[in-house]
């Protein structure tokens, strides 16, 4: 566990010092700012029940960007960079266990991602204050979305770490991770639409259901409902990909 904490601190520090992180943050909040402002205008002009406001803030372009691209960008350099520069040698010859290192890097990525998202919650809270909207919004869906996002991102980043550990080419790792994210978000619906009758079959339907991450998100987490069975899905997926990463990372020792 020592290795985990040390790696976590160091990686988190690296993320916070890297200009790319700030670029991502500026871009994300700029686009999101426009979108949230226009949603507020829409709600005010058309007299829409304000309880829907937090839910509407979910399905935005900026959110898609954050979910599809950013986890891949954050994790692409986890292991690939180390292999490229050769610092993997100093890492693997230090008296730390493989799983400690993997866990530390993954945790750092997830923590940083959560930190990137945190201002959205704070912003919404700030908007309820007097100089702005001076109303109180329902924060239940906000917290539920945040939790859902956290779970989803931990799984995406576990895969990103895995992709990163397979190659020493950063770009390749990023592309593989982005492809995975896209598949996870869009494939189940596509499959379900095209399978026709087969999709009715019990096990296939169950499988598609569990993997249909975007629908689950939009219809459960974004509305403020947390179904614990989905938590298990994300936790299991995260564990699976982290396991693969540890195997891949340590493969050099075994080969």
């Amino acid at each position, binding site marked *: 566990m*020592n*290795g985990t904490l*040390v*790696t976590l*601190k*160091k990686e988190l*520090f*690296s993320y916070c*010092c*890297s200009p790319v992180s700030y670029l991502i943050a500026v871009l994300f909040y700029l686009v999101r700012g426009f979108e949230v402002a226009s949603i507020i205008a829409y709600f005010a002009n058309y007299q829409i029940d304000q309880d829907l406001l937090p839910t509407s803030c979910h399905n935005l372009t900026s959110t898609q960007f954050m979910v599809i691209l950013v986890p891949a960008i954050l994790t692409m350099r986890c292991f690939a960079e180390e292999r490229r*520069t*050769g*610092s*993997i*040698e*100093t890492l*693997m*010859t*230090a*008296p*730390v*266990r493989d799983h400690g290192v993997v866990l530390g890097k993954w945790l750092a990525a997830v923590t940083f991602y959560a930190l990137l998202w945190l201002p959205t919650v704070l912003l919404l809270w700030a908007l309820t204050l007097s100089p702005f909207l001076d109303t109180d919004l329902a924060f239940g869906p906000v917290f539920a979305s945040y939790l859902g996002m956290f779970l989803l991102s931990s799984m995406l980043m576990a895969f990103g770490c895995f992709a990163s550990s397979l190659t020493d080419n950063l770009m390749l790792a990023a592309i593989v991770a982005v492809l995975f994210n896209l598949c996870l978000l869009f494939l189940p619906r596509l499959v379900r639409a095209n399978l026709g009758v087969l999709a009715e079959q019990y096990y296939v339907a169950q499988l598609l259901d569990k993997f249909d991450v975007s629908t689950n998100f939009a219809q459960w987490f974004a509305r403020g409902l947390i179904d614990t069975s989905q938590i298990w899905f994300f936790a299991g997926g995260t564990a699976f990909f982290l396991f693969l990463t540890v195997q891949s990372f340590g493969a*050099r*020792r*075994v*080969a």
Partner: protein
Amino acid sequence: MISVRDLEKHFGATRAVAGITFDVTRGEVVGFLGPNGAGKTTTIRVLTCFHPATAGSAEVGGCDVRRQPVEVRRQIGYLPENVPLYPDLRVEEYLWYRAALKGVPRRQRRVHVERAMERAGVVEVRRKLVGHVSRGYRQRTGLADALVANPPILILDEPTSGLDPNQRRRIKQLVRELAQEHTILFSSHILAEVQDVSSRILVIHRGVLRADGTPSQLVASAGQRSLVVEARAAVDVLGQCLAAVPGVGRAMVEDLGLGVASFRAEVATGADPREAAAAAVAARGLQLRELRLQLPTLEEFFYAVTEGADRREELAAAGGDGDGGAAVAAVPEGAR
């Protein structure tokens, strides 16, 4: 502290290390010498548990590298060949991180890091980003990293590669200082350094250990010593004068011009004909300019056991098909 038995490492079909056996005892400074691609780095990587051995065994500080890798790594301070560091951290931040990673307790971290920085000589660049310091400082940072947990064994892979002569001298000096407290195994292809610093030398070539001994032992088995005398005399006079000196073998006399001649002769093993030669020249009344016993160089030895040995093998293989023994005997002495 380190013992390697019949170590083999194959990468697919390539045999990088083909069965080497050696020991390093406590307090020794062992130089690992070999041409590029000989298998030095591979052997070191097996010792530091970066690669697993294909066959054979290695033990560091009593722990087997295959079964107790973490304990092995705990005992080693390793400086890899390219000194890979993290360019976005400051030097001291990097060392703090490495100290923590190596399990230095929090309370002692500051002391360890300060001491490592002092010994490696990077105190003046402690606040600079690693990516911004010069090559020499990077090397020293890597060295500080190897030292930070104060391990009993230091393994340095080409610690002076890419450095200018002054920097190299500094590193050599440092290694000498460190030798007082640590057991050091370092690799290099620069003979002079290895010769200066090591108490023992291992020569590896094509994955096989070709020599193992102290510098003087190796040098002694290298080649011929020579007696070199320079005097103001005629070529034949000088030759005659010195031919009779005991211990002097086949000679070669050369006219250096301006009335100066140079006498060079092989010296028999164990003989030291310098005093006798000086007396002979004085007896003849010649003006002596220079008198020295030329030792064979490590370079000659190195060539002999590496490329020289390769050539012999090639010729042996070629000669085996043709003339047989006669061809073998025709190999000139000097090429040995």
